[in-house]
């Protein structure tokens, strides 16, 4: 029994109470802790934080484990935590993968303890790392590598360095249980971005104070992490702007601030991990210390990621600084810090490699670390000369000091926000384009002053609330303060949990209900969906930093998930079309059978000349109607064709043929060219132009590629648009795209009548089929609805018959209908729903099915 537990024992306690809890106060503390953790499990599940394995398996496992762990004698607690961690690994990865992970991990730990010199052990570890690099690169294919190696790396890639350092200097405990708990710690299996913890701190802080206080601190951290993740969602869903939407100074400010605040995701994850570790006695420090309120670059570096800073300080900064004794203090500092920032940049790329399996050597990344490194070094040298004065906690800041502090914090926030926007840009040119698109003028700056004043008010309030007094007050370990904290945490958790329940939701207005429901869903924002979609057609990493959930989605992406042009079924054309399907090919694409017929479209091998008595429909679309991710017979077009022939022929002589001319990535303009060059030769009676609200973007992106490549632009109206947009191939991709996107409507307004005109000339009925996209509910957006209405009106005015299938996926969750988590194309079920809805619509609208030539 710990010292504090013993203090709680009262002479009036009954036998069982004394045995289990010490006394009634111990029982009350346990009960309150159990209730709080239980509530947090419910909240995490209610809000689907952060991934399914976490909220369905790891959180409940941690809760159950905590309840048992609480009653174990001290000597059994660490072994129990290890067992729990192993169970967590098994629950997350399954049997063979968890065996590989644990086996490889034990091998790495074993090498550290070989009775050989440090040099020999390091050499062996490097040899093993080289072997793992080969596996990570996919040079040798093993089924488990993609799943196991990122998690193994997150556990070992940095911790091994710290562990070896501490072994060398005999710091921390060298017992096997401590090592196993350190490397295999429970939450790590679902949060691979949490790689660095100092080993000696891990050992030193294990039950270093009253255990109830440690548990309560953990619960507080868990709740804080949950709230941070909710704020992240709110910012990501409602405040974050796509960079191409930045058109003014206020847009730029909104984009940069939201972009920076997305780091709340990472903060939330780290806080959850550390909070969970507290439940098992690891009294680790908070990983981030309100770095939004940092007042200098060194202050930011100290607060932003405490664990990383400690790692760099221990393994690189101090050893180098102490080795350079012969140099002056400033030179030592400069050199040692320069090495720290080169290492930080390199290790960031190193971490990226292990987790993503690709290399991150981008100009924005290098530039960011170079600029940030120089600023921190300069600030450190200045601070070292001037001295940094602290206080012991008694003296509060005067109001004028708070005002000065708020100004400094705001200034630093601005600079870091700007740097962050550079770091997260896809290229330096795109970042420059972001600024030039914002049209910053003197007039705009003057109009921006009230926003700056408002921002200053926010910083002033935050500085007053959080920075007025140094925060070194020890936690109050009294019984009633403990219960008070527990009551507040429980109340907040209960509120969060109940707020999502239908009965409670009903008391809010519709908009609030919609927001609460949305915040309970893990989804991508509009821009991220577009980046993900763009990734289907371009060799592009959707996420270029660990700054949002998007990279996590990318990480899950199978290595065997090529673009169509990377397979035998697709090839470049060298002209405006850029891509076409290769006739007479058959292959497995995205786990589904794809057959391209002799005419170069994905369908059966029809005769070009329409047989007598056949009603022929040509389907034109992009990757959705193409059937990306589903087999030939699962595409809605194939299902519909079969059903029409089975149920709706009416007369035995009528046969329907649906020819699928869809090609991944094709926009309306390319479909127009395809209609002219290829489709009309097949004598269709009707053409279904399958569209989505994203067609405008798809068109602008394609045209951007053509401009960027210096290719020929077809049609006078398109050439006029390129001229009016004042774009040329020397501009950045984002800059061209941003400008061309503005002309999306105009392009469609010209393309639709041409399309309809060609149809009329060949006696074809043009039909505009608006198809839905697979995204979570809120993504269905007013924005999409507005665009859809606009495009349908344009098509209708051009003479198209309209078929609106936009509600075909209503009532179904995105995860039911998408091919994979990282691939939002409709799966077989989605295609079935589309086919059913289209069939019903066609039956109601017999004009389309009867419009024979």
């Amino acid at each position, binding site marked *: 029994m710990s010292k504090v537990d013993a203090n709680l024992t009262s002479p009036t306690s009954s036998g069982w109470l004394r045995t289990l809890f010490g006394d009634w106060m111990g029982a009350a503390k346990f009960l309150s802790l159990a209730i709080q953790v239980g509530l947090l499990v419910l909240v995490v599940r209610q809000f689907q934080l952060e991934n399914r394995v976490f909220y369905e398996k790891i959180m409940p496992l941690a809760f159950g484990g905590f309840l048992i762990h609480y009653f174990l004698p001290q000597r059994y607690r660490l072994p129990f935590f290890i067992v729990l961690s192993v169970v967590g690994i098994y629950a997350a990865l399954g049997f063979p993968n968890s065996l590989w992970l644990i086996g490889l991990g034990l091998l790495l730990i074993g090498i550290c303890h070989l009775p050989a010199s440090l040099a020999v052990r390091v050499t062996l570890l490097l040899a093993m790392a080289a072997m793992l690099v080969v596996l990570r690169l996919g040079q040798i294919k093993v089924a488990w590598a993609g799943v196991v190696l990122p998690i193994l790396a997150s556990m070992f890639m940095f911790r091994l360095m710290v562990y070896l*350092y501490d072994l060398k*200097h005999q*710091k921390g405990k060298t017992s096997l249980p401590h090592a196993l708990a350190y490397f295999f710690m429970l939450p790590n299996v679902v949060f691979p971005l949490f790689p660095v913890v100092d080993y*000696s*701190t891990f050992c*030193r802080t294990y039950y270093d104070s009253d255990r109830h206080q440690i548990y309560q601190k953990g619960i507080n951290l868990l709740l804080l992490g949950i709230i941070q993740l909710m704020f992240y969602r709110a910012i990501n869903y409602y405040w974050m702007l796509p960079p191409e939407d930045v058109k003014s100074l206020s847009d730029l400010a909104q984009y940069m601030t939201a972009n920076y605040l997305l780091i709340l995701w990472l903060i939330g994850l780290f806080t959850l991990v550390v909070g969970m570790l507290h439940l098992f006695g690891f009294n680790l420090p908070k990983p981030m210390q309100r770095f939004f309120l940092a007042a200098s670059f*060194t202050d930011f570096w*100290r607060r932003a990621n405490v664990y990383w*800073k400690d790692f760099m*300080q*221990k393994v690189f*900064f*101090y*050893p180098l*600084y*102490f*080795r350079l004794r012969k140099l002056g*203090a400033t030179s030592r*500092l400069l050199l040692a810090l320069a090495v720290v920032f080169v290492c930080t940049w390199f290790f960031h790329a190193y971490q990226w490699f292990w987790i993503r399996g690709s290399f991150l050597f981008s100009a924005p990344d290098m530039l960011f670390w170079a600029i940030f490194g120089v600023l921190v070094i300069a600030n*450190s040298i200045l*601070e*070292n000369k001037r*001295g*940094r*004065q*602290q*206080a*012991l906690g*008694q003296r509060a800041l005067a109001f004028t000091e708070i005002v000065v502090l708020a100004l400094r914090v705001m200034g630093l926030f601005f600079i870091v926000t700007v740097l962050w926007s550079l770091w997260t840009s896809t290229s330096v040119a795109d970042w420059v384009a972001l600024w030039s698109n914002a049209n910053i003028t003197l007039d705009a700056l003057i109009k921006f002053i009230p926003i700056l004043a408002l921002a200053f008010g926010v910083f002033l309030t935050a500085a007053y609330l959080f920075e007025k007094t*140094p925060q*070194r007050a020890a936690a109050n370990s009294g019984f009633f303060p403990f219960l008070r904290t527990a009551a507040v945490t429980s109340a907040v958790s209960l509120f969060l949990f109940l707020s999502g329940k239908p009965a409670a939701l009903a008391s809010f207005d519709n908009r609030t209900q919609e927001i609460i429901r949305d915040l309970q869903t893990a989804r991508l924002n509009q821009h991220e969906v577009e980046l993900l979609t763009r990734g289907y057609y371009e060799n592009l990493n959707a996420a270029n930093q660990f700054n949002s959930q998007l990279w996590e989605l990318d990480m899950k992406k199978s290595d065997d998930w090529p673009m169509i042009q990377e397979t035998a079924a697709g090839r470049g054309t060298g002209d405006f079309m850029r891509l076409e399907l290769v006739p007479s090919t058959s292959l497995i694409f995205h786990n589904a059978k794809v057959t391209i017929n002799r005419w170069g479209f994905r369908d059966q091998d029809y005769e070009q000349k329409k047989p007598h008595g056949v009603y022929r429909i040509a389907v034109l679309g992009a990757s959705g109607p193409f059937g990306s991710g589903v087999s030939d017979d699962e595409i809605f077009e194939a299902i519909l064709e079969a059903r029409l022939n089975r149920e709706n022929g009416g007369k035995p002589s009528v046969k329907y043929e649906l020819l699928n001319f869809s090609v991944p990535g094709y926009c309306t303009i390319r479909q127009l060219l395809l209609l002219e060059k290829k489709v009309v030769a097949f004598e269709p009676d009707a053409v279904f132009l399958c569209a989505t609200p994203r067609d405008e973007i798809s068109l602008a992106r394609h045209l951007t590629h053509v401009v960027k490549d210096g290719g020929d632009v077809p049609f006078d109206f398109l050439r006029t648009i390129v001229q009016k947009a004042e774009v040329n191939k020397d501009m950045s991709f984002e800059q061209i795209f941003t400008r061309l996107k503005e002309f999306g409507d105009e392009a469609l307004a010209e393309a639709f009548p041409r399309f309809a005109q060609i149809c009329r000339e060949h006696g074809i009925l043009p039909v505009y089929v608006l198809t839905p996209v697979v995204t979570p509910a809120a993504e269905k957006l007013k924005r999409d609805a507005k665009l859809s209405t606009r495009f349908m009106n344009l098509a209708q005015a051009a003479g198209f018959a309209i078929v609106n299938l936009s509600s075909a996926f209503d009532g179904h969750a995105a995860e039911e209908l998408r091919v994979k988590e990282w691939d939002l194309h409709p799966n077989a079920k989605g295609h079935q729903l589309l086919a059913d809805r289209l069939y019903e619509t066609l039956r109601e609208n017999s004009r389309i099915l009867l419009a024979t030539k």
Partner: protein
Amino acid sequence: MTEATKATVKDYILREFLPGENPAALTDSTPLISGGILDSLSTLKLVTFLEEKFGVQIEAHEADVEHLDTITNIAALVHAKKA
């Protein structure tokens, strides 16, 4: 010897990092690194002071919370080095 070392160290910390603070508020067990009084740069300054003042050489792995977190720890380190 140890008490004198403690007094010297305390005097330096008060002068260098906590000017204007009540000396009585800084005790031998006040957490310096874990309490945020010493950051990495201040720690290096303190190490330089200890090396110059007491003629000892402190290693990189000793510049940590285990050896320098309190005045008592610091005095013990200096004492061990000089022994």
